[in-house]
């Protein structure tokens, strides 16, 4: 699929997030942390994805944004970074990549209400897609909206799934609904955060 066509179909930020998460999984990460913070007052949206995969080869950070570059021998980098960089630049935001063995961090910051910024979209579906991988990594997700926080960690999954593995279809649907409710609570009420105490 041509790059331009792929870019035009990534109509949600959550699809870009999924692509970054998939890249981390393909790289062999066993733990991924996602921090998504929205500040309506400052009109900012910041997304940070950190994984514990092997990292990019030394000096390859800049090349990672080139759609024709890959370092598949050590780390699979798909089109995720070039596409998200294109989006960030389009809305006047910033993006950075820091990588070393055992830690790779992608950080982007964009104006939240920019006309050309796609909507966040279905974040629960993107998180679920990663959790349905065989040998899925530990996923720690923090979403903050104006100080209200939703925290999710796959290490705490047992209670939500009643003992079923996430890949089991009915368990997956239950998990998705749990994530949806938790994230939706960030936008509806100051007092109903799913896990405000953490």
């Amino acid at each position: 699929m041509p790059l331009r066509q792929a870019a035009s179909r990534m109509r949600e930020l959550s699809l870009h997030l999924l692509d970054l998460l998939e890249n981390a999984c393909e790289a062999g990460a066993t733990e991924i942390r996602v921090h998504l913070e929205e500040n309506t007052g400052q009109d900012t949206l910041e997304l940070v994805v950190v994984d514990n995969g092997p990292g990019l080869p030394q000096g390859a950070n800049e090349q990672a944004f080139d759609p024709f570059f890959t370092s598949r021998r050590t780390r699979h980098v798909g089109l995720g970074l070039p596409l998200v960089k294109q989006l960030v630049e389009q809305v006047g935001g910033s993006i950075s990549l820091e990588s070393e063995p055992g830690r790779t961090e992608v950080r982007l910051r964009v104006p939240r209400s920019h006309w050309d910024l796609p909507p966040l979209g279905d974040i629960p579906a993107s998180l679920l897609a990663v959790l349905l991988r065989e040998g899925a990594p530990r996923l720690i997700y923090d979403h903050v909206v104006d100080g209200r926080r939703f925290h999710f960690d796959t290490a705490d999954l047992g209670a939500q799934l009643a003992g079923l593995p996430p890949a089991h279809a009915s368990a997956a649907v239950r998990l998705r609904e749990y994530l949806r409710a938790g994230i939706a609570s960030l936008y509806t009420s100051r007092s109903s955060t799913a896990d405000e105490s953490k």
Partner: protein
Amino acid sequence: MPRISSVEELKALREQARRELQVRLGTGTRITVGLGTCGIAAGARETMQAILEELERRGIEATVNTVGCIGMCYNEPLVDIEQAGMPRITYGRITADKVPRLIEEHLIKGQVVAEWVVGRMAQEANNGPKS
């Protein structure tokens, strides 16, 4: 199709069909969705969601997995269905709107949807490494 000549034969046929359906819908079913960049851009995440919803709606017990790029980007979204005793079938261009028919025909009726098939692997080869 054999001619049914009595109510007993009809009942026996129905019971046989029910047993076969149970076997097909047992937990031996695994559905895999490709979610590389190509798959994501082609709508594979929505396909995954549609599969989960259809399985839930019909009460079908199955395992749903995601994987990275499978390698046939032009045929994304790609969906693999594996069932005990049957060849592994890879379907191509399975957008979310095609999922109800796929589940109905492949999982409920046990019939491969030939026009959507892009790959087929014999049962004995299923245990080997994925290509």
